[in-house]
């Protein structure tokens, strides 16, 4: 990308096309489905030209619209979460799922589900607590060596993730048969169980987006190392803590609503960085828009690939993301 343009111009050049892509993804996501309600119906319904109580309107408003919005918000959150962890750990392989932060959040949510807490605030709070616990564990691991020493921290995260997986399986084995199917499907990343009533809780991630965008410039400086950032005038501890808490919070909100969807935070920032460079003032909005479009697209695949029914979207994102992770690691080793 041409660096001589002012940052505002470059921001427009990034946001405009990605915004159009997202718009396209939103409309495609809403107009595609198994019930035969198509693009034309959608346009009529969105313009208010169809009866409010028609079947088609119900399908659009009660099933597809919430699902696509959920995919967009969760995709944006996970992509942004990956971007922040990568900046703070200065490691392009860091990501909420790989580091175990999503797993911790899932453990909290499952425990709350099994003891029968309400989705909000019960499950949400437990989920946030779970992910914070993993984060504290990660920071303690990191404090032993120098913070962010490349692979050791990542390895620690992978092990925490493995542990989380075991705990989740243990919890499921305790669950009653009726709950198991539900929990398992949710775990693999399920976007179909969302209703419009949950939207206000989901949208609590938006203030986190704003905060992270405000902190984009200090994030740039943090890429050069904590001490470099500090001598350039960044309040390193304050910025780091704000970013970690905001990111953990929004990831736990995403996990509560959609289960474990991995590798979105790896794939999206990686591709965007190749296209527009390392400047977070561009990468933050780009990851939000790109992540949203990406997960809507993955969800479309999850809905359309199986001959009958659908598969969890987490399966699709892992099948795209895991090979990319391996490729990036292989290339970094050379």
């Amino acid at each position, binding site marked *: 990308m041409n*660096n001589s343009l002012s940052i505002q111009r470059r921001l427009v050049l990034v946001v405009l096309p990605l915004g159009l892509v997202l718009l396209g993804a939103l409309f495609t996501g809403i107009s595609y489905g198994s019930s035969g309600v198509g693009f034309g119906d959608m346009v009529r319904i969105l313009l208010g030209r169809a009866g409010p109580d028609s079947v088609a309107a119900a399908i659009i408003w009660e099933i597809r619209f919430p699902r696509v919005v959920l995919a967009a918000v969760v995709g944006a959150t996970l992509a942004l979460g990956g971007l922040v962890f990568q900046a703070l750990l200065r490691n392009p392989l860091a990501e909420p799922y790989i580091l175990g932060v999503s797993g911790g959040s899932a453990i909290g949510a499952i425990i709350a589900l099994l003891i029968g807490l309400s989705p909000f605030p019960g499950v949400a709070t437990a989920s946030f607590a779970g992910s914070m616990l993993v984060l504290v564990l990660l920071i303690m691991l990191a404090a032993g060596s120098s913070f962010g020493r490349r692979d050791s921290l990542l390895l620690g995260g992978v092990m925490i993730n493995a542990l989380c997986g075991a705990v989740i399986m243990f919890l499921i084995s305790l669950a009653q048969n009726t709950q198991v199917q539900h929990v398992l499907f949710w775990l693999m990343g399920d976007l179909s169980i969302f209703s419009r009533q949950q939207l206000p809780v989901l949208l609590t991630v938006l203030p986190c987006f704003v905060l992270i965008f405000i902190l984009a410039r200090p994030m740039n400086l943090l*890429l*050069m*190392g904590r001490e470099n950032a500090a001598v*350039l005038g960044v*309040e390193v501890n304050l910025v780091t803590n704000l970013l970690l808490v905001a990111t953990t919070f929004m990831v736990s909100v995403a996990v509560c609503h959609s289960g474990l969807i991995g590798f979105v935070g790896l794939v999206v920032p990686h591709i965007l960085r190749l296209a527009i460079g390392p400047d977070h003032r561009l990468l933050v909005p780009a990851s939000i828009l790109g992540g949203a479009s990406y997960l809507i697209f993955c969800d479309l695949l999850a809905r359309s690939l199986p001959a009958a029914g659908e598969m969890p979207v987490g399966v699709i994102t892992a099948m795209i993301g895991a090979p990319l992770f391996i490729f990036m690691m292989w290339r970094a080793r050379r």
Partner: protein
Amino acid sequence: MNAVRVDNITVRAGGKILVDGLSCEVKESEFLVIIGPNGAGKTTLLKSICGLNKVQSGRISLYDKPLGSFSRRDLAATMSLVPQNMEMEFSFSVAETVLMGRYPYLGMLEQEKRADHEIARQAMEFTRVDHLAKRRLDQLSGGERQRVIIARSICQQPRIMLLDEPTAALDPSHQLTIMKLMQRLREEQNTTIIMVSHDLNLAAMFAHRIVLLQEGRAVQSGIPGELLVPEVLQQVYGCLMHVDTHPVTGTPRVSLVP
């Protein structure tokens, strides 16, 4: 006026005493070089002066104001550090890196103005990296990269500049370039230079004054001619050194005796 005053500071980390009751002063627009054997506390002292280390006792002041009274931002507008190493996982271009030196002067969402770009351009010209402006940092040689970091440092418009072994990984010609840049910066902008170095001969040629550290203390300080004498060096470094006069500059010349 003293630019920096370090008064009896002690720094401990992980149960080890790194700096033990160290005192020293640096005058405004002085070129000071800190020397001493490995583990003497040179880097610790430098990091303490720019507020990166917690100091357990003693006090540090800049221009007679205690270090603790500076915010990170104020501090970054007063002094800059050229560190020993820098992470480069995600690499910015040279121009973007240098422009980051303007951070302490910008508000949260404020954009760099024309004046900021001009200051960055001048800093790049000063260290002769302006022709590399569009290149990515990880594509540069060691000498070029060091000059970029120094340009970023200059872009902060500091009154005090700290450098931690800036010539350590460079060939002789680049070493000289860096030292001359610092000399020019001091002459043209009155910047106070505090440099940690292992190169006694470069120190002899460029320093106004040398501070010698040993086991966490400043054991001696003086002009190169006074301080760089065989007895002192042998006592501190524990090996034989021969000192004569540099045939061109007339400054002390230190040679190892095998």
